[in-house]
């Protein structure tokens, strides 16, 4: 059975992040995900939305909407994030590798941590550009454990 749990349009600003998280948290909880899986999904969406606001829109002098929806099909909960910014695939950004993650903080660079965290928390991610829209989709399964971290490894190039 397919159900739409929640959907809303937000202005693409950092101030919209708490409301975006609330939408995903409420929708994913209503879909029956356990609290740890909900947290990971909320974190993933927050990190992607932050990237879209900062790197998709603001860096290019643009403003516009972020559309977020939560839906459920059988045991799979799906969150779709769409925006009208420049073509931008957050998953294509360089990620820290194991060596980076073992460096003391004094020697760390700050890039890529958010996307790394996003991929640790969801089971599948896909990106597509259709017309003038970016579309990021996260999928988590109610049946699978929350910490597989499988998505990023496959999405990475």
């Amino acid at each position, binding site marked *: 059975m397919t159900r739409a749990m929640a959907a809303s349009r937000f202005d693409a600003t*950092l*101030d919209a*992040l*708490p409301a975006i*998280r609330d939408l995903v948290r409420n929708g994913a909880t209503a879909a029956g995900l356990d609290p*740890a899986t909900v*947290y*990971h999904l*909320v*974190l993933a969406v*927050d*990190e992607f939305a*932050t990237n879209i*606001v*900062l790197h998709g829109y603001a860096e290019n002098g643009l403003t516009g909407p972020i559309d977020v929806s939560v839906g459920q099909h059988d045991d799979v909960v799906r969150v779709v994030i769409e925006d009208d910014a420049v073509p931008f695939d957050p998953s294509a950004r360089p990620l*820290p590798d194991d060596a980076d*993650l*073992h*460096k*003391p*903080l*004094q020697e*760390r660079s*700050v890039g890529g*941590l*958010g996307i*790394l*965290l996003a991929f*640790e928390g969801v089971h599948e991610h896909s990106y597509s550009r259709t017309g003038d829209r970016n579309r990021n989709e996260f999928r988590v399964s109610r049946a699978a454990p929350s910490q597989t971290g499988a998505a990023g490894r496959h999405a990475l190039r």
Partner: protein
Amino acid sequence: MSLEIASAVTGSTATITLVGELDAASAPAFREAIEKATTGAPNRLVLELGGLSFMASAGLRVLIFAKQKLGTGVSLYVVAPQAPVLDTLEKTGFVQSVYVVASAPT
């Protein structure tokens, strides 16, 4: 939920208490609180995180900033993080650079 920040300096220990959600919108205020609380060159920075229910990577970047600003002579304590926040610190290797403790050091 927004972020509430409280700061206190006692002797050579600066303590910052965070309650709520730490994201890219609230991280600059956290960073400012660290800058203010550490002007007296403390040798310990204690972060009370028991009331922090969400932390995005923007929070991690503030921790990197703190560590790089304060140098290796200043110990960074993370007190009573909730499980998902601790999970984030572990996945990113930050637990190797901070002391994660159940209650504030005395």
